[in-house]
């Protein structure tokens, strides 16, 4: 009993100190969640329209970001020019993936297409390593200042770059949702998503609409990559791996709902950050990610649950 009391006395200040960190860690988690949400939006868009879970999404983001790096850091052009180059490169890569490797497999099982995207992941990762080196020693394109402002209650400084990532993630999610709901292209995308054969009967060019979704999704990947890399390691590996966290966020949105994907990203960011207040071990964040993926799969995709969509 004495030992228990001693332990409690010993832990009391530590726990008190850790709980006091939670407000600040909430903001840190939301900022991290913005990163995941941004990475996940393109994944959801492509999946909704073409039914393909794009494992190469992070690799597309990475490669496009290296294009921005080439333009803005190595050639010295302004950052916005690098961003435009990255968006253009992302769109072209998305178009190539769809036109040359996904479209010919139109009648194949979804798993075949997923394997093709894994192939693209490896190709882009290797290619980037060969061209720009496979280490983390690259200076990222800094579009937005790292300076920030102090939040009054939590006494935490939030960088303008972090705030931008958060706002752009929200804007992209809402914008994409609006595009799907209110525009002709969006209506066509939803029609293709629901039933490509029927959409074709209505005169919709399924190939064009699918290509447009891949281009738009990959362009979003490029924007995400350029904005995220100052916040993480900039190499041909880390951004590719961020997509695993993005999948967890997308799963929470059932791979269909963009607003819920953003919520999933925020939830994941918080779930990864809070344990750091109490545990000092490395890898606790990754553990949370995989547990969340497993839990989401078990709950949302259990037998009898509402189907996500017909692939």
């Amino acid at each position: 009993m004495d030992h228990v009391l001693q332990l409690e006395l010993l832990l009391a200040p530590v726990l008190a100190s850790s709980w006091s960190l939670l407000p600040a860690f909430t903001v840190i988690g939301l900022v991290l969640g913005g990163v995941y949400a941004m990475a996940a939006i393109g994944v959801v868009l492509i999946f909704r329209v073409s039914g393909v879970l794009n494992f190469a999404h992070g690799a597309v983001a990475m490669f496009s970001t290296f294009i921005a790096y080439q333009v803005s850091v190595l050639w010295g052009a302004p950052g916005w020019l690098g961003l435009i180059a990255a968006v253009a490169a992302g769109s072209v890569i998305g178009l190539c993936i769809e036109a040359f490797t996904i479209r010919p497999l139109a009648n194949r099982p979804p798993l075949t297409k997923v394997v093709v995207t894994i192939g693209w992941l490896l190709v882009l990762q290797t290619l980037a390593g060969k061209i720009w080196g496979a280490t983390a020693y690259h200076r990222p394109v800094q579009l937005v200042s790292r300076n920030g402002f102090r939040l009054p209650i939590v006494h935490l400084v939030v960088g303008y770059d972090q705030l931008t990532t958060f706002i752009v993630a929200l804007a992209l999610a809402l914008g994409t949702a609006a595009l799907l709901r209110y525009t002709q292209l969006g209506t066509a995308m939803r029609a293709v998503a629901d039933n490509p054969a029927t959409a074709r009967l209505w005169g919709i060019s399924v190939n064009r609409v699918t290509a447009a979704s891949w281009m738009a999704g990959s362009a979003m990947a490029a924007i995400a990559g350029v904005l995220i890399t100052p916040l993480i390691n900039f190499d041909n590996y880390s951004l590719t791996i961020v997509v695993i966290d993005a999948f967890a966020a997308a799963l929470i949105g059932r791979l269909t709902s963009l607003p819920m994907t953003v919520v999933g990203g925020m939830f994941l960011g918080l779930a990864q950050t809070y344990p750091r207040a109490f545990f000092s071990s490395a890898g606790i964040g990754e553990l949370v990610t995989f547990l969340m993926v497993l839990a989401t799969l078990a709950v949302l995709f259990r037998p009898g649950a509402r189907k996500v969509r017909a692939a």
Partner: protein
Amino acid sequence: MNSSRERIAVIFMTASVVMTLVLGGAVVHALGRPATPVVLGARSGVSGSASGAGASTATTVAASGASATGSSSSATGSSPQTASSGARSTSVSGGLSTAAPGVTANTITVGGIFDETGPFDATVERDTVRAYFDTVNAQGGVNGHKLQLLDCDSGYDPARAHQCSQQLLSENILAMVGWLSVSGEQPETPYLTGQGVPVIGGLGVPAEFASPISWPVTDNLVTYGTAMGDHAKDLNIHAPGLVILNANFIAPVQQSLEDSLQHNGIAWKSVDQVDPTKPDYTDIAVKLESEGADSCIAALDPFSYARLLEAFDRQNFHPQLFGLGLDKASANQQYGNAVYGAQSLTPLLEPQDHQSQAGIAAYYGAVQKYYPSQVANLDVYSEGEWVAAEVFVDALRLIGTAPVTRQSLGTALNSLKNVDTQGLTQPISYAPGNTHDPNRCFQWIHNVSGTWTTYSNWNCF
């Protein structure tokens, strides 16, 4: 249609089985060759003295008088000479083999495992060793032998590091020289030395200080911990937060740091282990600030420091930073003003404020000449591998015109006394024994307006 597909599948399967058998047989054959005998440990008798060539078998004789030509080192007593009856002779009982893998009439081939991809960039260490070899080769090599380094990328992956060990063994390297594989050195040092491969240099992981045929040149990272804990007191550090890289050798290093802090009456606030891929250190900054830490004692890689400092800077929280391995020029560009006033320590002469010093000039000059793009990436670790290459070449020169074998190399290394590294370290000496720990000294450095400046003599632990 189906039958033709099945035929194709059967052909592919048959071909793959045949290829597997052929390649598997080749690997078994290569690894089973007697060129890489298993060595259990060097005897204390393997010494540099003429009379003490303890691995005294029929294949080993001691000859005196052949001094090391051009060597900057001196050996006690006569230079050890080993005459082998043949390059493929059998291993000497209890000592290094008299076999001479990697040695031909014209070249000596050594190996190195480096993190060339992934979160670390050890290509600068690889190129530093090559720059030293290129310099030696340009002067005619060592006793007619040109030096060659075979490298293998471990990519911060212990499994790949092990594959590299096997690959380099199959390519018959004489020794490992100047390697840097952050997660590979701790498990691979016992493996390689168990295969009889001399290991020279390295990051300074504990395993490199636990083998009779490993000859480190830099401080044990455990000694770093002791030194940092000791110097923390001098820096008036009272309540530090510890931030330490999560690596497979870190437990004894962390323990030595904590022991030393405790010994000096310093109570640390918290210990955070972090992965080298940790993207954002805001949580660490907030945590340390809330704990009331007056400083941060860190053991990270150069670019993790950049993210740590960035987080400190963003939070306008500026604890005193005391970390090892901070003085890397290319990383310092990312640190910006945040690193001003930071404290560090180095077991090798700090290059940034000793540019005109002879040893530094030779080191920078060689890298500038052969690998100019790497100059900005030079750091304390590449300097250590430069010294490792120097020690290796000194040992070769000590062997003289006698056959170069793993045994003669080991004997020569054990004979090196007061190796003059042109002032880059305290003089380095080795002796026959179960372990080697030749460098236990540090100089304290701090960052003055962007330049790392030395402010102490050597402090030895």
